[in-house]
């Protein structure tokens, strides 16, 4: 079978699985967030934490709960990392203070940027009780925010948005845990390891000894992809044979990354009582995903003309197609796991994965974050073009007025500001520049990639940049923190403001937000806003490299 055919079949399989899975999963998630009953284990959690699951929260209380929970997560994870030496199974693993700060922020913000080396930075205890737990709850926070925004759109003249603790607990217990368990078993069957034996020393073919570490990898791998986290157990991440042994596990991982983000539009459609609304959002996400996959795959296969082809930095197990599918998906979903070296991609291929993140992680984006990001794009599109139908712009019956557009505009400006200012400052500073491997346009892309990845909570690394230095550890941590929580805060305020409105009935006079035209408009707005913001820097980075 030719590589092109097998590549296309792999993509077709992914699309087919998602097409089948997104309906029941989307419906199930809608039920999770509307059900009245609490499971016994959930009630136990509520009692333990002393929260009343029936109390409704205003947006500010909801936001305060998110902030409180995340602060505790960061501090707790930081403490666990710093004290891992005194805990069992330490095996000498340790991190510097700034690296630990970076890591704690990184995992609590669903970014999973790793400036440490998995094998020597984090003990199995930290991996399993710290990082894996954050993999679950940080994804659950994303789901909770998405649901709160949907409630803002559906509730009629309401002051409340639901209860964060209930949304968080249900996301973990009813969605992430069961799916991660299934994912772990499948990966285990595919050959991913799961043990706690001591590291093994093996003699390499070149005669150099290598220490191969294993651990509770399969279980962590499943939620790593499912929760669009991306932090690898091992430094090589999904390029490592113990994390991602073959083409089948590669495909499973791609599906795991995509399944929740691509199902959430369905949940949205069901919850707003008009499935077509969800279909438009889905079409928007899918169009961008397919288009960018085509660009990146084309760039990489076209680059494969030299003696080495485009195989530098790619695993022969996956080939070009398996690598680009993974690289594209991981950057389009804010996962950030890697199975190939993005730095080695052709300028356009590397620029493509960079552009994926610059889009603001909406194609389909992270768990929860993708949906609320896409809804922000939808509101922006409604506002710009909606005036053209001669009505105050509205989305599913809620008016987009001054307050709403202010919040949406601020969300839109947050990550570009972090990326541009962060990269600009780092390039102007000698210490950060010293960490760059490349020079010229490629060096610029290395730095740009790091700040784009952190600010958009993706977490993938371009490599080439030695990021484990105090300046970059701390500025990137700041970008992750602000890139995650500033938009969340603004979106909760937006949800609160939308919920307080009366829902207007749908009429022919309102701009339809369920049509293919609208989905196309959303694509146009997302591409145009991203393009206009980043074109100068893309021209100096990937484009200059490609055209020279």
């Amino acid at each position, binding site marked *: 079978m030719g590589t092109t055919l097998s590549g296309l079949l792999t993509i077709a399989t992914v699309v087919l699985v998602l097409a089948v899975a997104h309906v029941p999963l989307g419906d199930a998630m809608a039920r999770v967030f509307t059900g009245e009953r609490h499971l016994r284990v959930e009630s136990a959690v509520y009692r333990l934490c002393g929260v009343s699951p029936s109390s409704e929260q205003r947006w500010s209380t909801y936001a305060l709960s998110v902030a409180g929970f995340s602060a505790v997560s960061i501090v707790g994870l930081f403490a666990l990392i710093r004290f891992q030496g005194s805990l069992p199974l330490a095996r000498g693993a340790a991190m510097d203070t700034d690296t630990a700060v970076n890591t704690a922020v990184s995992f609590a913000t669903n970014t999973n940027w790793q400036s440490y080396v998995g094998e020597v930075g984090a003990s199995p205890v930290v991996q399993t009780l710290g990082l894996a737990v954050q993999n679950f709850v940080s994804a659950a926070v994303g789901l909770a925010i998405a649901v709160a925004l949907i409630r803002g759109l559906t509730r009629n003249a309401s002051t409340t948005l639901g209860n964060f603790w209930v949304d968080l607990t249900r996301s973990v217990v009813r969605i992430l845990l069961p799916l991660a368990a299934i994912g772990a078993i499948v990966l285990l069957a595919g050959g991913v390891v799961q043990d706690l034996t001591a590291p093994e020393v093996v003699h390499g073919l070149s005669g150099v000894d290598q220490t191969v570490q294993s651990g509770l990898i399969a279980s962590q791998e499943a939620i790593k992809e499912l929760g669009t986290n991306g932090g690898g157990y091992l430094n090589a991440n999904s390029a490592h044979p113990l994390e991602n042994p073959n083409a089948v596990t590669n495909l499973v991982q791609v599906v795991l990354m995509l399944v929740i983000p691509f199902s959430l539009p369905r949940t949205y459609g069901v919850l707003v009582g008009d499935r077509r609304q969800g279909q438009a959002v889905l079409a928007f996400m899918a169009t961008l995903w397919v288009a960018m996959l085509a660009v990146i795959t084309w760039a990489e296969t076209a680059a494969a003309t030299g003696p080495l082809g485009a195989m530098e930095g790619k695993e022969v197990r996956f080939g070009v197609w398996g690598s680009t599918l993974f690289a594209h998906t991981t950057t389009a979903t804010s996962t950030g796991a890697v199975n190939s070296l993005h730095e080695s991609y052709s300028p356009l291929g590397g620029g493509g994965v960079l552009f994926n993140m610059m889009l603001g992680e909406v194609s389909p984006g992270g768990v929860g974050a993708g949906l609320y990001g896409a809804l922000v794009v939808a509101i922006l599109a409604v506002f*710009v073009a909606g005036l053209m139908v001669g009505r105050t712009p509205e989305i599913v019956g809620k008016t987009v*007025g*001054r307050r709403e*557009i202010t919040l949406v505009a601020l969300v839109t400006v947050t990550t570009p*500001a972090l990326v541009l200012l962060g990269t600009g400052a780092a390039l102007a500073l000698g210490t950060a*520049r010293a960490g760059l491997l490349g020079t010229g*346009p490629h060096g610029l892309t290395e730095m740009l990639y790091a700040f784009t990845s952190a600010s958009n909570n993706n977490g993938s690394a371009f490599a080439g940049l030695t990021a484990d230095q105090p300046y970059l550890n701390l500025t990137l941590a700041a970008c992750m923190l602000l890139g995650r929580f500033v938009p969340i805060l603004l979106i909760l305020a937006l949800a609160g403001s939308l919920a307080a409105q009366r829902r207007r009935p749908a009429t022919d006079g309102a701009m339809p937000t369920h049509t293919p035209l609208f989905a196309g408009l959303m694509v146009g707005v997302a591409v*145009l806003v991203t393009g*206009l913001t980043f074109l100068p820097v893309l021209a100096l980075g990937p*484009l200059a490299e490609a055209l020279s």
Partner: protein
Amino acid sequence: MNQLVALGTASFPDAVRKLNPQHLFRSPVMFVVWVGAVLSTVLAVLHPSVFAISVAVWLWLTVLFAGLAEAVAEGRGKAQADTLRRTRTTTTARRLLADGAVEQVAGADLRLDDRVVVEAGELIPGDGDVVEGMATVDESAITGESAPVVREAGGDRCAVTGGTTVLSDRIVVRITARPGETFIDRMIALVEGAARQKTPNEIALGVLLTVLTIIFLLAVATIPPFAGFTGDGPSVIVLVALLVCLIPTTIGALLSAIGIAGMDRLVQRNVLAMSGRAVEAAGDVSTLLLDKTGTITLGNRQASEIVPVGGAHATDVNRLAFLSSLADETPEGRSIVEWTRTQLGEYVVTPEGSTSVPFTAHTRMSGVDLADGTQVRKGAASAVRRWVADSGGTPSADLTEVVDGISAAGGTPLVVAVRDADGAGRTVGVIHLKDVVKPGMVERFAELRRMGIRTVMITGDNPLTAKAIAAEAGVDDYLAEATPEDKMRLIREEQSGGRLVAMTGDGTNDAPALAQADVGVAMNTGTSAAKEAGNMVDLDSDPTKLIDIVAIGKQLLITRGALTTFSIANDLAKYFAIIPAMFVGLYPGLDSLNVMRLGSPESAMLSAVIFNALIIVALIPLALRGVRYRPLRADQMLARNLLIYGAGGVVAPFIGIKLIDLLVSLLPGL
């Protein structure tokens, strides 16, 4: 167009005055351009070059053009304000004292609740209600309508406006507005734009434009460190040029002109909006409450058919109906004569020696007694029945059925009976009078429905009649036997469902509903209570105009949206002009992005700046006139406008910049 050029020339001094930065603080986008212009001027003075000087000049022109757009829009209102101001000459009023004596005071000294006497030939000194007497008043100063109107104490036609002239008789007016706050004062402020406040959508759009400006500021400000990583970055003047091209100057420059022009379009149609908010709300309206009489139907009922009863011949019935109505001067009577005449052709002539019997409240019939003693009567069914019975006859058996049938269809039945000189009376037929829907209304309601607007007909008729007319006119719903309380309840219901409601009204009892409605259009003939309560006044007192008002509101919003989309879509081409030009020195390969094949880096950047300035001037007529509005479904309208202003906005600058570049390349030293 010529008129516009003249207006533009006349407004030029105002435009220059608007270069004052204090004025520009209101528009952050134009303020950034102003700062850029100052900066580039300083740089052009320090390091003069053809390029630097050209950029500085065109940046100043950009700011100037924005001021020009606003000045032209304001200029149209100013002329109108001057006309109005002339009517507001100092008047003397004759104030009635408590003891009945009259004293002369200046119009400006009148206080609320003062009573003044106005006689024929005098100007009414202030807004008020007629409390005594009746007069004809010339209101042409405000409405432009030369036919005088009647104003009388009590009822719904008691309001008079200061500055209008009493033509006949004497009235006593109770003053209801303080000097300086009269209707004319407010009108002057409105058309001059002095009272203009930004509307909600305009503010929201302003926020978006500001944030876009911030994004582009960041994108441009971070270019030096990025470019500096490998070589020499672009010069400051180039960065300024790029920034000005990227920020949404087109819409930023035209935004306030669009708002002023929108209000002006209403004024052109003799509608005064008390706030811009109301104009925007008109675009958002999803329920229209329309009074039946005068708006949906012609004021009067008209004959639409005559049904023979008791075996009478149709021609005979028509002839009798014709005779019975000959002396009937009411519109209904006229319509019967007209209808039967067309049915009968020419052969009916007025019989000689007949005596007409006029309608009285007592008999509730009218008719004619012919020379041969035959009596013909027509009237309400019960009255005619009694007349027939009194003469010893019996109403025909099928009469009840026909009468009930017409009533059930929402019509008014008039029974025609005849009594020969010696015989008993007999009923011969029933005239079907019905409300006639104004021509074209059915289409308009269908149009409104396509725009997603629900129409509700308000009428005092019984439900049966109301239903029939509602069905015929094609309105979505009706409110029969409506009292002011019912109207109010209906508005509240619609609003609680999230709908915006518009209505017209003129009576004092309409005032609460007018105030409650999102768009309340008071008729100028109405009471001052109604005019106070509504947020618009229609000087022509034409309730059908509500539909036009909705269209103007929509047009205002569409114009803003279209120019915003156009403005942002333009940026793509500007990037393709400037980015390669800016970085081609660093990376010669980037020249392949120069898809327009522009002459030189300098000419490319200058062409983008020039295009950016000229497009403002080119779009001023569109901003003032508003984009063409056709009532379409929202999805059709979106597709159409996206194609014109979105796709057009992407393509137009590619062509424009290329053409300008061909000219600019000829500049020596560039």
